[in-house]
Each structure stands twice: as structure tokens, then as C-alpha cells.
């Protein structure tokens, strides 16, 4: 049993220096606190505890105070004093709600989680950058509430207050803010504080805020199309291959006329000189036409294809025109988090 206890202590000690290293000795100006950390690093828990408590009685900055409580939490955790450990972590969380324990043993992490559940804070409030057309996008907001509470999220700018969300919740919260006024209009440009207020059952109250800069811009219009990608107009005429079709047609027409004349001549002979001259002329015309390059003919399929293409292009451009009308009336919203949050 003793062996197990020592193993736990050693495990905590091995993990703790890394955690305290994050505190950064350089950032700690208070000499007592620095000595306390050094004592902890040397596994001199009594010395670390005494110096830590002494440092808390001295003048410390808020981060130093949070680190002092963190140190005490680790010392109590390493010396198996859970209540004191949790109490120290609780103080640390209230001072610095966003603080995460760096690499620590499972047992100390457990104490830390227990401490979290005993206080009401809003942690890790994050507002992501976003850019969207008003009404078609949102600003992602996320945070964690450590205890069940009525949580109200607002955007505040000067006298303008916009309620984003109000709910009773605990744990991770993800919100989508469309950056619109209750009337549906996009929020005016300016600097906004995204405030999260959590009110617990015991009327405990905690708030966190992040600053964002909201700017408005025009929405880019879409250029009209002169061609549909992947589709090209086809030639509307085509030269058919050379053939003897003209001569054949000339034969057909000549034969029809000659046969008609012969069939109708009856008792009177038809001296066919004049008829023959024209018939021969027709045949010669057909023969010469057969030897010449054929005249370009309308390519019906291509004409239909081009017509459909033009209709499609016209329809698409009409859609673009309608879309551009809407785009000219739309507002591009750009949200950028800026420094200066707070709890």
C-alpha cells in the first residue's frame, strides 16, 4: 500500500514539472513563488507548500496568484490531500477560467475536473473568423459552461444589444450567430463584444466576453458568360462530299420532262430539237455541278445545337443577371476576433 502511494506521488511529481514549466519561471516575478516552484521541482513538498502559502500572502499579479494556487493544487495532489487539492484548483479556475492543466497524472486531472464541477465559470469562449453574405452564413461561437446554468449570449456594441442565444445548459456549447438584427437586417459594422453570461442555481453569476470587429462590404457580382465552359459553337454550314447526285437529279428531271412530252404528243410528232437542246443543257449543268465542289449546305443538326447553346447561354446570363441584382443588394459580412476578451 505504501509502495502504491509512493508510485502515485512519483507519478505526480514526474508530470508536474512540465506543468509548472508552462507557468514559465521568467514570467513569475515574485521571488517566494519562484522558490516554491523550485522546491516542488526538488520534490520538497513541505517547503513548496510553505513557500506557496507565503507567496499568496504577498502581492501577486493575477497570473502569479493563479500559478500559486496551481502549485498548491499539485502539492496537495502529490501528498494525497484531495480536498485541499480541489480547493486550490477551484481558486485557480476562478482566477483563470481558461487555464488548462498541462500534462498531469490522471489523479490530479481528476481533482481538477472535480474542481471544475464545483464552480460556475464560462471557459474557452471562442469566436471564429467568418466571412459570408448576410443571411447566408453565420459566426461560430463556442464555449464551455462548467455547471448547469442559464446561459445568455449577447452581442453588444454601444447601446445596441442583440440576444444571440438563451438556454439552460452545461458543458460544451456551440452557437451559430447569423449576425443579423431581430428585423433580419445585417448588424451594422463596428466592434462588438460577444458576451456570455451564466447564472447558476445559487444566483452565482459568471461572465465571459470576446471582442470581434464586424465590417461590411459589397458582394462581388458574377461576370456574364460569353460561352459555356466545355461547349463550343459548331459551324452552321457544311460542304457535303463531292458526288454524282447533281447529274442524277439532272437525269431525273430531264427524263420526267421528256417522258411527259412523249406521252402527251399523241398523233402529232414532237420534233424534239428544242427539247433536246434544253435536255442536254440540263444534263451538262448536272455533270459540271457534279465535278465542282458542292456548295455549303446548312448543317441542320449544328444549327439546332447552336440554337440550344445560345438559349442555354441566354438563360444562364439571365440567371446571372437576377443573381447580380440580388448580390448588389446583399451585404458581405466579415467577422474578425480582436484581442481584449475577459471574464
Amino acid at each position, binding site marked *: 500500500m505504501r509502495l502504491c502511494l509512493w508510485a502515485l506521488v512519483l507519478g505526480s511529481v514526474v508530470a508536474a514539472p512540465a506543468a509548472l514549466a508552462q507557468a514559465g519561471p521568467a514570467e513569475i516575478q515574485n521571488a517566494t513563488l519562484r522558490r516554491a516552484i523550485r522546491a516542488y521541482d526538488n520534490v520538497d513538498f513541505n517547503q513548496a507548500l510553505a513557500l506557496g502559502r507565503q507567496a499568496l500572502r504577498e502581492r501577486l499579479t493575477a497570473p502569479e496568484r493563479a500559478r500559486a494556487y496551481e502549485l498548491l493544487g499539485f502539492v496537495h495532489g502529490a501528498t494525497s490531500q484531495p480536498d485541499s487539492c480541489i480547493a486550490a484548483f477551484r481558486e485557480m479556475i476562478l482566477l483563470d477560467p481558461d487555464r488548462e492543466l498541462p500534462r498531469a497524472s490522471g489523479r490530479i486531472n481528476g481533482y481538477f475536473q472535480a474542481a471544475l464541477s464545483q464552480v460556475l465559470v464560462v471557459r474557452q469562449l471562442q469566436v471564429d473568423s467568418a466571412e459570408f453574405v448576410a443571411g447566408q452564413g453565420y459566426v461560430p461561437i463556442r464555449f464551455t459552461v462548467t455547471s448547469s446554468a442559464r446561459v445568455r449570449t449577447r452581442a453588444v456594441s454601444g447601446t445596441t444589444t442583440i440576444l444571440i442565444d438563451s438556454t439552460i445548459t452545461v458543458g460544451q456549447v456551440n452557437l451559430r450567430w447569423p449576425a443579423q438584427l431581430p428585423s433580419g437586417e445585417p448588424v451594422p459594422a463596428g466592434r462588438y463584444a460577444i458576451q456570455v453570461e451564466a447564472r447558476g442555481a445559487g444566483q452565482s453569476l459568471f461572465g465571459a466576453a470576446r471582442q470581434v470587429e464586424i465590417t461590411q462590404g459589397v458582394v462581388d457580382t458574377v461576370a456574364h458568360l460569353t460561352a459555356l465552359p466545355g461547349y463550343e459553337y459548331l459551324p452552321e454550314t457544311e460542304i457535303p462530299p463531292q458526288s454524282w447526285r447533281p447529274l442524277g*437529279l439532272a437525269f431525273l*428531271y430531264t427524263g420526267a420532262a421528256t417522258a*411527259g*412530252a412523249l406521252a*402527251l*404528243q399523241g398523233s402529232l410528232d414532237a420534233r424534239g430539237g428544242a427539247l433536246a*437542246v*434544253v435536255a442536254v*443543257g440540263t444534263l451538262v449543268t448536272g455533270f459540271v455541278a457534279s465535278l465542282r465542289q*458542292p456548295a455549303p449546305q446548312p448543317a441542320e443538326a449544328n444549327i439546332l445545337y447552336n440554337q440550344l447553346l445560345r438559349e442555354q447561354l441566354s438563360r444562364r446570363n439571365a440567371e446571372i443577371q437576377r443573381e447580380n441584382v440580388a448580390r448588389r443588394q446583399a451585404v458581405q459580412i466579415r467577422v474578425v476576433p480582436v484581442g481584449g476578451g475577459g471574464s
Partner: protein
Amino acid sequence: MRAGLALLGLAATTLPLPLTAQRFVIGVAGAGGDYREVSNDLRYRVSGVGAMAMFAAGRVAAEVSATGLTYTADGPNATRDFKAVQFDGYLRVLLVRGVSVEAGLTNRQVDAEFEYLAQSAAAVRLGLYSAVDLGRDAGAQVRVNYLAGARFSGGGTAPLAVDVGLGFYYGVANGRLRLTGESQFQRFNRTIDPGGVKRDVPIQQIIGKLGFAVVL
């Protein structure tokens, strides 16, 4: 004046054809052929010159031609020569590609009709006309017209009267100028009824024309 006309003609034949649905064609032609009436013994050789004009717009076309003809006695029963003027008019509407329905009239006025050398004849045309492109600026056409309500200066009727025509054109000078040829076989199965005895006195004329036309 002559120089102006020559320049106009030159310009008309050198400019490319406009791509339009309307077309106006005028032309002149020399004619030759054969005319027979009643029997093969009453026959004449025919020669002459004529002019034509044609206007086409969309599916409709109108065409007129006038030909001055000289009939030279050729058969044993033909006693002397005479002259005539033949006028043909056509109005046609395109039915389907290449085939039109055609209506019009034909009128051949003989200058010596009262000497019983030959008959003046007139009739209404009703029939079909087919034209086909044989290639670039070349084409052929054929027509079959029923000659309805035929009237003759010597009287009589022709229950069956037909006009069969064949023609071609070959375009040169960007299609502005056309060499043209046209034949016309005209047959009237004319009958007369002198003294109550019915008698066949058919009239048959074949004319061929060669000439040129300008497309405006």
C-alpha cells in the same frame, strides 16, 4: 446612257449575291421550236426572242415571260408565215422542299388569226413546279401544268391541255449572272364541232429557250 447601263450591268454581275430571302431575276432568251396543228402536215418552225422576270420572297414566287415568236411555214399545208406573242404568268407557293404548287395563265396571240393560219389560245394554268439545286449556283426545274378553260380564236374546246416544262440555270460571276435554258411542251387536245360532227384538231407547240439572266 449606254455607258451607264453597261456600268450597272457590270456592277450587278461582279457584286456577290446578298444573303437574303428575296430575289429578283430578269433575263432574255432566244427561242426556237416547232408548232403543229391538226396534223403533221400543218407545221411551222418557230423562232423568236423573249424576256422574263421572276421575283421570289420566302415561300412565294411570281414569274412572267413574254416571247415574240415567228412561225415559218414548214409543212405542206402551211401556206404562209405569221407572228405571235406568247405571254406566260406563274404564281407559285412552296409546299415542301423543292416542290411548289403553281397557278397562272398562258396566252398566245396570233397576229393573223382571222386568216386561219393558226389559233390564238389562252388558258389558266394549274400544276406543280419542282426545282432542285444541282450545286453551287446551278439548278434545274420541271413543271407540269394543266391548262384549264382553254379558249381558242377559232372556237372549240380542249378538255385535256397540258404544259410540261424543263429548265436549268448555271450561275457565273458569283451567281449574279445565269446561263439559262427552258423548254416548253404545250399540248391542247382541241376538238371542234362544226355541223354537229365532232372533230379533233389538236395543237402542239414545243419551244426551247436559251439565254441569260441577271440576279439582282
